[in-house]
């Protein structure tokens, strides 16, 4: 059984452990062994918590043998993006400025996972403070794509995506501000879901851009994605932006019949710049849904072309305010250079932050500064309204929108890192979703000629994650892309 454990789905693992077909300890050990073999090559985990995971597994096995009740994810391993706080664990955001910082409380999603009896394997790599699309901005080295070690895994949640893709963990959590779950899911050939803004509490998620950030699941199958979303969703008095909207039973919703379903194909997402391999695989996915009986029609989201410009004004503006807290006084890196308090601030920040974070703080500070506020920040907020209305209008006609997740398959290391604007444009199809607050999922739909993964994205109405999961489920019943295992050895 042991060699097969790593290929099991999370829901299968949970069931097998409950039935005592396998112990939680065996499961955890299998994934830890796999991580110890492959993580040195992939750098998906910044830290693997071997002892702690095994102890928790033993604790659960004892509980099960005593016949005590256990949670939905009892014994299921999960990897956590290193911008989500776990009490007593380091939390670095892949930044030097938080080197040595230890979280003093659990994020709400972590508290929920603990009460569901999930087992945390470790902290996964990311672009520093979740700012990037390739994980190359990590202060602790880039993560590699399990499908091709010369390629990026996407970002910012590249470590979580690579960990699930390479079967180092059956589940992972990421965060998505402009595509940071969906784009790496696409690049690594797995599922990644950004829930509706407010669906999941962000208490304990280290803030990047507060009007856009959401925590969400990575998994191999729709059922697993539903299972993890089930556990982490719901309102929270510690996050007043979370929603009290009732949480459906995703675990049973996911396998419900698909029809009737109207799919909108936004013409602005099939423009030049989309690579042929991506276009043809996404068109095949559209054909699959037609064969399942869905109706497809072309729709227009006319303000799509402005989304990148709006996002790269609003997100850095919010980031420049959120990251003002890193001043070397209460936690994190403090420079011992400089004589005055102001110099302590300036030197601590300059020594602690990497180039992309500094660039975004500069951009955001500029956009918010006196004399430029109206021309940049306020203007971008108004155009955001137009982008949001694009979605409202489209969802009056169709149930969901289907698009490519990214314009290209995974790119090579160093290809875009020197040109910030070029890197920003790799998020072109994932950004609007965050601006409108709607849910989005990336689903693997094949490979290009070099065997690099390609994904498509489905965007839905607010709080309609059920339809996205159901579409993923029915698509995966018809296809086997999600069953392919990356060649990394």
């Amino acid at each position, binding site marked *: 059984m042991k060699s097969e454990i790593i290929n099991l789905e999370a829901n299968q693992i949970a069931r097998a452990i409950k039935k005592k077909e396998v112990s939680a300890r065996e499961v955890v050990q299998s994934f830890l062994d796999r991580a110890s073999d492959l993580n040195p090559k992939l750098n998906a985990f910044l830290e693997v918590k071997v002892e702690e995971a095994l102890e928790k597994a033993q604790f659960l096995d004892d509980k099960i043998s005593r016949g005590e009740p256990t949670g939905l994810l009892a014994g299921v391993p999960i990897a956590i993006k290193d911008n989500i706080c776990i009490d007593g664990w380091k939390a670095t955001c892949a930044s030097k400025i938080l080197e040595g910082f230890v979280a003093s409380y659990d994020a709400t999603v972590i508290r929920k996972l603990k009460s569901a009896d999930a087992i945390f394997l470790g902290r996964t790599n990311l672009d520093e403070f979740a700012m990037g699309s390739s994980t190359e901005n990590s202060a602790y080295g880039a993560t590699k794509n399990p499908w091709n070690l010369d390629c990026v895994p996407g970002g910012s949640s590249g470590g979580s995506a690579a960990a699930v893709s390479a079967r180092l963990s059956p589940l992972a959590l990421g965060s998505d501000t402009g595509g940071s779950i969906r784009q790496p899911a696409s690049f690594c050939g797995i599922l990644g879901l950004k829930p509706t803004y407010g669906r999941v509490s962000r208490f304990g998620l280290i803030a990047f851009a507060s009007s856009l950030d959401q925590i969400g699941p990575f998994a191999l199958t729709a059922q697993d994605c539903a299972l993890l979303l089930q556990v982490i969703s719901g309102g929270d008095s510690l996050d007043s932006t979370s929603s009290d909207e009732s949480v459906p039973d995703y675990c049973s919703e996911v396998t419900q019949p698909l029809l009737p379903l109207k799919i909108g194909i936004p013409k602005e997402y099939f423009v030049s710049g989309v690579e042929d391999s991506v276009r043809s695989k996404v068109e095949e996915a559209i054909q699959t849904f037609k064969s399942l009986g869905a109706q497809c029609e072309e729709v227009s989201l006319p303000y799509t072309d402005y989304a990148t*410009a709006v996002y790269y*004004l609003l997100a850095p503006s919010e980031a420049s305010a959120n990251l003002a807290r890193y001043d*070397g006084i209460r936690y994190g890196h*403090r420079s011992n250079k400089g004589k005055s308090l102001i110099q302590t601030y300036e030197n601590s920040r300059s020594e602690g*932050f990497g180039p992309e974070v500094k660039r975004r703080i500069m951009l955001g500070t500029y956009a918010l500064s006196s004399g430029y506020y109206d*021309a940049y920040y306020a203007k971008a907020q108004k155009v955001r309204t137009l982008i*949001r209305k694009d979605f409202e209008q489209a969802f009056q006609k169709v149930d969901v929108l289907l698009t490519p997740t990214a314009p290209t398959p995974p790119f090579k290391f160093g290809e875009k890192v020197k040109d910030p604007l070029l890197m920003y444009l790799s998020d072109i199809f994932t950004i609007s979703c*965050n601006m409108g607050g709607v849910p989005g999922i990336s689903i693997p739909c094949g490979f290009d000629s070099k065997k690099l993964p390609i994904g498509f994205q489905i965007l839905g109405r*607010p709080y309609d994650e059920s339809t996205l999961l159901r579409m993923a489920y029915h698509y995966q019943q018809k296809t086997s892309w999600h069953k392919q295992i990356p060649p990394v050895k």
Partner: protein
Amino acid sequence: MAITKKDVEYVARLARLSLTEDEKENFTSQLSSILEYMEKLKTLDTSGVEPTSHPFVSKTVWREDVVKPLFKAEKILENAPDKEESFFKVKKVLE
């Protein structure tokens, strides 16, 4: 619009960043080309359009102001770069 090295130095001061000469040069050209891309927003007529600060119209969340323990000071201070008793220690603020 092109931004100058002087703009970069001014913004760096606002952002409490001390930049090297190389960083100043880089940011001057990179921020200029990024902001040039943003110019496309100016072609849109947004008169009468309300700004969006959050995706959904959200209401202010009210709650009773009840004192309850959330964190222990000693635990929070474990992350302090420098401390004395139960305080964060900083450089002299007033001469």
